[in-house]
């Protein structure tokens, strides 16, 4: 398990190659990449977080996933600071023997991250800056995991 919170972008090829290389039993790697959408003349997005709690909550989310599925490796990278449209915000990668566990755990981690990890987005547009509202659909996405 490995969790990073960082300003810089990441090397997708290297991250994925590492997930696949942890064991000769890896048959499946599911990944998720979240991007800054260029909606509504968005100029930039700034991500604030709660240092200390962020790493702790991400590690806890990953532990929950590892308790539910037979995972061989998990990697979570979340960027902070000012990001431009098209830039990557988040990476979740999960390696497992078979695809079912990899897909489920990757989506589970994203659903929990979206509602439990202390990150906040502020959008800059020509009309000024505004904090992004939480989406009800993110909270309801948790229901499929039975909690």
């Amino acid at each position: 398990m490995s969790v990073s919170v960082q300003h810089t972008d990441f090397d997708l090829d290297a991250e994925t190659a590492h997930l696949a290389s942890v064991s000769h039993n890896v048959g499946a790697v599911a990944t998720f990449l979240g991007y800054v959408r260029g909606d509504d003349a968005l100029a930039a997005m700034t991500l604030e977080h709660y240092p200390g709690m962020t790493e702790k909550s991400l590690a806890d989310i990953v532990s929950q996933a590892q308790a539910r599925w037979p995972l061989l490796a998990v990697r979570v990278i979340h960027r902070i600071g000012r990001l431009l449209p098209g830039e990557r915000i988040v990476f979740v990668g999960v390696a497992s023997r078979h695809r079912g566990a990899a897909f489920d755990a990757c989506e589970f981690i994203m659903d929990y991250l979206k509602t439990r990890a202390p990150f906040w987005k502020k959008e800059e547009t020509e009309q000024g800056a505004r904090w992004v509202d939480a989406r009800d659909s993110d909270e309801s996405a948790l229901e499929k995991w039975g909690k």
Partner: protein
Amino acid sequence: MGIKILYFASLRETVGCAEEVLESLPAGVATAGALREWLCARGGDWTALRAGQAIRAAVNQNLAHAHTAIAEGDEVAFFPPVTGG
């Protein structure tokens, strides 16, 4: 020991404060919910913490409920619903 209180995102901007330290827990305040009410009672911008506003709390960096106990030496944070990912 006192108690450290952190504010994040829109709430941080509204109350104009990222972090404060109370020298001791206010009298009668023993839960995260009670601390929130005590802060709200400051009035003005602090009423952003009033009941019904979507504000979350963490105690010692774990998500908390209104009834979560707090004690001297704890780190308590208040913030709006998270929007990362």
